[in-house]
């Protein structure tokens, strides 16, 4: 084959093979890391790690973070950041719990599906409201995302605390806990996980195959070029933060169902965990590149690690050190492979 042949008809040679595309995929190597981790723990503790129960709880425990991270992926691809997700989650849960109490006229412990659905809607609306606020301040008022979401991080938490005077609400419909919180479908699959998977699939579809997703990449790649190309950058950014807020609202409801409590004092590290998952998955903090699949892998690497360490009883302090080291090593390995592929 001479060079000539390759470039004749104005470019565009045919696509590389599936194998080459897989090897070339940004998520391939980091995915290998995840698989390696599972294998290692599986070998170390086959009877404990590779059990249905472990897998179920692993999935359930990551469900809430996964939903937050899907939203965060969109935000980071635009070159932004959202520190407020954890607080918005708590706020949504609190408002939802309050609303369910209110429509049940007191305790909502025995409320039925109507009330629960109402609670879900309220949670989504509450999350969406914060999302819109974030979006407008970032996109229209052009305040840096870090500052805006740091501000709403505090504000949403303060507002959530105000609503019930600083204490948690713990009287929630018991149906909600038993079905959504830790019920299963198809025999084995926790319902919470089904919700998370469905939302993740929708997110992946939206990001990778639709106009909305394309514009998300464009805004992150070069916002000025996007603007000049007639993309409503302000509007697009606003909808992305709104989407993230709405997902945080859903996550708030999921957390409510799971914990059966508004857990005001929890979720303080959700924002960093979500950001770390997204970045580990190969999304650049500078925007313009990223995948939802990468984020999923990025969510599971620390989760599997911590689960494995807990099962093999690694001491807390060593665990912290080891998790830190593996995070760095995983990304380093990924970078290394990708770089050599480009040689």
């Amino acid at each position: 084959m001479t060079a000539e042949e390759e470039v004749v008809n104005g470019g565009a040679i045919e696509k590389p093979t599936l194998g080459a595309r897989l090897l070339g995929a940004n998520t391939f190597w980091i995915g290998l890391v995840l698989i390696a981790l599972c294998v290692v723990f599986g070998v170390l503790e086959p009877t404990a790690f590779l059990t249905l129960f472990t897998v179920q709880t692993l999935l359930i425990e990551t469900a809430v973070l996964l939903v937050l991270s899907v939203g965060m992926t969109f935000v980071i691809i635009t070159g932004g950041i959202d520190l407020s997700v954890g607080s918005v989650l708590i706020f949504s849960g609190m408002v939802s719990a309050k609303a369910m109490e209110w429509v049940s006229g007191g305790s909502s412990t025995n409320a039925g599906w109507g009330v629960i659905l109402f609670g879900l809607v309220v949670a989504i609306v509450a999350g969406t409201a914060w999302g819109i606020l974030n979006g407008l301040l970032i996109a229209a008022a052009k305040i840096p995302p870090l500052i805006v979401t740091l501000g709403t991080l505090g504000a949403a938490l303060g507002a959530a605390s105000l609503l019930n005077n600083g204490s948690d609400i713990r009287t929630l419909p018991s149906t909600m806990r038993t079905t959504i919180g830790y019920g299963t479908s198809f025999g084995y699959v926790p319902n919470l996980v089904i919700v998370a998977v469905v939302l993740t699939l929708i997110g992946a579809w939206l990001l990778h195959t639709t106009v909305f997703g394309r514009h998300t990449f464009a805004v992150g790649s070069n916002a000025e070029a996007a603007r000049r190309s007639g993309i409503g950058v302000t509007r697009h950014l606003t909808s992305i933060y709104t989407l993230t807020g709405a997902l945080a609202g859903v996550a708030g409801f999921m957390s409510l169902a799971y914990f059966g409590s508004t857990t005001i004092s929890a979720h303080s590290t959700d924002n960093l965990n979500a950001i770390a998952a997204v970045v580990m998955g190969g999304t650049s903090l500078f925007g313009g590149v990223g995948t939802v699949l990468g984020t999923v892998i990025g969510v599971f690497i620390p989760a599997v690690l911590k689960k494995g360490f807990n099962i093999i009883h690694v001491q807390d302090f060593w665990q912290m050190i080891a998790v830190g080291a593996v995070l760095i090593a995983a990304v380093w390995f990924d970078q290394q492979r990708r770089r050599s592929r480009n040689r």
Partner: protein
Amino acid sequence: MPVLEAHELVKHYGSVEALRGADFTVNAGEVVALIGDNGAGKSTLVKCLSGVEQPDSGQILFEGAPIRLESPVAARRLGIETVYQDLAVAPELDPAANLFLGREVRRSGLLGKLGMLDKAEMRRRATAEFARLGVTLQRIDVPIGSLSGGQRQSVAVARSVVWASKVVFMDEPTAALGVVQRERVLDVIRRVRDEGMAVVLISHNMPEVLAVADRVEVLRLGRRVARFTAAEATLADLVGAMTGALTQEETR
């Protein structure tokens, strides 16, 4: 009748005066070359006329009626397209995605209504467009940031001519192009003109200007200082006007 006119445009960037009362006119069906020294304000003028920047004062007329171009979208809606000097492409996206940026082709049917892209179709049409401009790409699925300077510029040029219906601004569209590609672009400019559109060409290459333009307008220090009919102008005239040796219009 002029399709687009600018009167006394003034534009400051902090204490820098980029435009100091610039006038400009372009008629349908003609190629106007906008020339001037580095820093004369050509790109700034183009940005004001394509909605990217708002002038501090002055008037813009489109087909005789005063308009405000608040955003690039407003200009595009009027059929005004622009090749920017800094190209304004999204470096992480591939050439096809850049070509269709803001005007993505959707699938037919319900999926399209839901916003799903028809990536194959866009790639196909992009390949055809690039071939027309003589652009050679080894692979079409690489990010545009990794293309050579000329390849990148060709994508930007292709984008503007595909979508324009009234006016095309081209801010140094041939600066990085090879000999063949340059000729193709000049051909495209002529074709677009012949279709009745107005083309505004910015270039520092005087032979090229004289070859393709019908009229020439000269900017100097943020003001229009001379106008020529290309057929009657000589290279010396143009250079004289650009450097200030020759001034036709009064300095206010």
